[in-house]
């Protein structure tokens, strides 16, 4: 079998994410925004067991994909201070800004939410600027 082009694999991965987001709304009436789901799970786990179940499914799904396809799990290589600072900033910003790539991106853009359109443009721009500064601006 000839390997599929990475664009096609990414597109199919996007389809899976889109179907999961649609099912979350159609079955449970919930936005599949990871930040919101994580917060609901942390603040009131007993009342939001669905959130715990969904969050547990994420690594299970990743494990399932790599086991079935035999593809290696991608490496993650960064200095620890940057990992902590980056992780904290991602969580802080996503919560303050009411959502991340899934909630604002896949769901919010699909709903034509003006807040989400502004959020997606803003975080994409700042991620691009950060990577540019790190790789080409002599910072980091």
């Amino acid at each position: 079998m000839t390997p599929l082009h990475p664009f096609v694999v990414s597109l199919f991965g996007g389809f899976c994410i889109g179907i999961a987001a649609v099912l979350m709304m159609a079955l449970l009436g919930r936005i599949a925004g990871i930040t919101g789901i994580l917060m609901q799970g942390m603040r009131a786990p007993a009342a939001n067991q669905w959130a715990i179940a969904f969050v547990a499914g994420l690594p299970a799904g990743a494990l399932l994909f790599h086991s079935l396809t035999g593809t290696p799990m991608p490496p993650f290589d960064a200095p620890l201070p940057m990992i902590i600072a980056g992780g904290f900033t991602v969580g802080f910003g996503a919560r303050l800004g009411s959502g991340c790539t899934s909630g604002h991106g896949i769901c919010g853009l699909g709903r034509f939410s003006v807040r989400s359109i502004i959020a997606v443009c803003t975080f994409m721009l700042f991620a691009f600027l950060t990577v540019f500064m790190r790789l080409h601006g002599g910072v980091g």
Partner: protein
Amino acid sequence: MNLVAALGCGILFGVGLAMSGMTDTERVIGFFDVFGNWDPSLAFVMGGGLLISLPFFQLLQPKLKGPVFGDVFRVPDRTDIDGRLIGGAALFGIGWGLTGLCPGPAVAALAHLDVDIIWATLAMLAGMLAADQIDRLLDAGKTSRA
């Protein structure tokens, strides 16, 4: 039944994140490295997701009475653009550019059993809880002024 549905959705979402390359931080950084060794493939992830979610939210959902295992569709109805939305999104973008991990992939990549991913995810959860506290303080400040 809704727990099984939520778990199933989470698994499918996790399969999608791993398949699409979103859990591969090198590719995520490559996607943002437009003026360097640009890897545009991750644009197809949001494209693919929207090809499914957009028709559902625009065409199908308005015709449905409610979710199969719930009472009502819980959809955000805010339309105000405030500093928290823009400042939060900017900070989120900066953090995403530093590690290449946004919240969904960070949790999905816990499957890699990599200590650094665990640190990144714990730091992320701490950041979310901290933002929640700031959010409450800001809200309290607003109420007392009003």
